[in-house]
């Protein structure tokens, strides 16, 4: 595994770890609360922020942060407050974000370098500055979830009962969407806007088949995500394939296999009893 000596490889591996911490935590909530489509909307809307970054000449990832936070809050407010059905609202924000990104990039003088990497990701070209952004996101998200674990758990399970016992579920829902927005931002570098949703949700979808314990689910999703991302990275460099897409296909393959593993686990347990 000589490839892991290079600095860009070291950065890639650090990024894989940092990003999957976020994915394991936020992705688990996305999966159990069934807001996968909302998260898809937020991630595509983030493209507007990327475009804005190009236009203003700043780091597109930094520009994407306020942009996707804004779209997360908008989706959250529209979906809960108005009669406009939730998936229409998501669809609209999704498209508006992408469209404004395209306009911004078009307005940017000259050629937009490595635009492609924001769409499809490239874990091998991550600059050190982005690692710091990821680290900060990890810190913020871990802090929020550790502080309000009980509340997020209760609200995700049963909104009505949570409301009755005095949990501010509206606000927590918006905070959750904002965490999705922040995760999306850090994921864009790894797998790109279009594939973000897969890395966010597949590890938790794999792991939830094997545990009913929320904390174990989060931790196992993180570990699964790290292992599969690094493995995917390794395969992509062996076969000379794009890293983001390879990682996603590997995740999907393992997800498929997990059904069979689950069946095997059940069969073994039955034999024992």
């Amino acid at each position, binding site marked *: 595994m000589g490839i892991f000596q290079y600095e860009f490889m070291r950065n890639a591996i650090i990024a894989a770890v940092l990003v999957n911490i976020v994915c394991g935590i936020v992705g688990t909530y996305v999966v*159990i609360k069934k807001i996968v489509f909302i998260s898809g909307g937020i991630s595509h809307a983030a493209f507007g922020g990327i475009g804005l970054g190009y236009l203003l000449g700043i780091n597109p990832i930094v520009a994407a942060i306020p942009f996707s936070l804004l779209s997360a809050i908008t989706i959250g407010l529209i979906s809960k407050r108005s009669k406009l059905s939730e998936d229409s609202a998501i669809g609209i924000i999704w498209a508006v974000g992408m469209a404004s990104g395209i306009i911004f990039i078009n307005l940017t003088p000259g050629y937009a370098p490595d635009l492609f990497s924001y769409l499809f990701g490239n874990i091998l070209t991550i600059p050190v500055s982005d690692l710091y952004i990821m680290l900060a996101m990890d810190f913020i998200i871990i802090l929020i979830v550790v502080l309000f674990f009980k509340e997020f758990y209760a609200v*995700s399970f049963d909104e009505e009962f949570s409301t009755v016992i005095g949990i501010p579920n509206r606000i927590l829902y918006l905070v959750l969407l904002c965490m999705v927005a922040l995760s999306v931002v850090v994921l864009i570098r790894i797998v790109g806007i279009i594939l973000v949703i897969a890395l966010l949700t597949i590890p938790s979808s794999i792991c939830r088949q094997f545990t009913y314990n929320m904390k174990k689910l989060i931790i196992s999703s993180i570990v699964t995500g790290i292992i599969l991302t690094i493995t995917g990275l390794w395969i992509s460099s062996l076969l000379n394939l794009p890293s983001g897409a390879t990682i996603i296909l590997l995740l999907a393959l393992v997800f498929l296999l997990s059904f069979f593993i689950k069946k095997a686990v059940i069969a073994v347990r039955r034999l024992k009893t």
Partner: protein
Amino acid sequence: MKNNTIVDFKNIFFYYGEIPVLEDISFSIKQNDFIAIIGPNGGGKTTLLKIMLGLLKPDRGTVKVFGKNPEEGRKLAGYLPQNIYFDLNFPINVFDIVIMGRYKGLVRKYSEKDRESVLNALETVGMLEYRNRHISMLSAGQLQRVLIARAIAREPELLLLDEPMASVDPEMQKSIYELFLELNKKMAIAFVTHDIGAISIYIDSVLCLNRKLFYHGPKEGSLSKLEEAYRCPVEILAHGIPHRVLRRHKK
């Protein structure tokens, strides 16, 4: 006098769009009340409970719960909903559901006492041995008992239950009614039911609802009003029991 009023409804009107669901409802629930809320399907019973809990806002009229707005007052209430909206595949076991009933405020951790109350509540509904079960592996009646445990584990001052006996077998029903009688010494209880036979045995007052409030008072006087609300003779409602039981205690 004001002090022992727990819930106070004054001229409440509630509409779903243009459909009137509750019209001019006024009543109060006092400390140690044990009230059965009855009425036909669509009569507004669930709506009434949700207004008490601040989950729905009345279009007109005022509600006070423990003298406060429902959003504040509901923190002292325990609630069993009629319909569940949660996902049975959610990663949660019986114990973790019931301990949510012990929630007291942001950032506060569940204490040893909370855990004890949960185990006690599970014991009383006969679900202690299932405490580590995942929710998808419970029968409907077992799940109902777990949700009853969640409501009582809260040790509320007002217990609101929407058809608590749905799916519960007769033996467990009897012990849950007895549990309610016991709990009633410490808290007011209001519950929705269609079981008029049980009212005759356990309950002292009845609130009869079909869009309007047809009756609120001791069960003995409720017979004719009940017929009016349901628009059918009570014999049919209670399989012939009421003549004996609803009138027996007439003083």
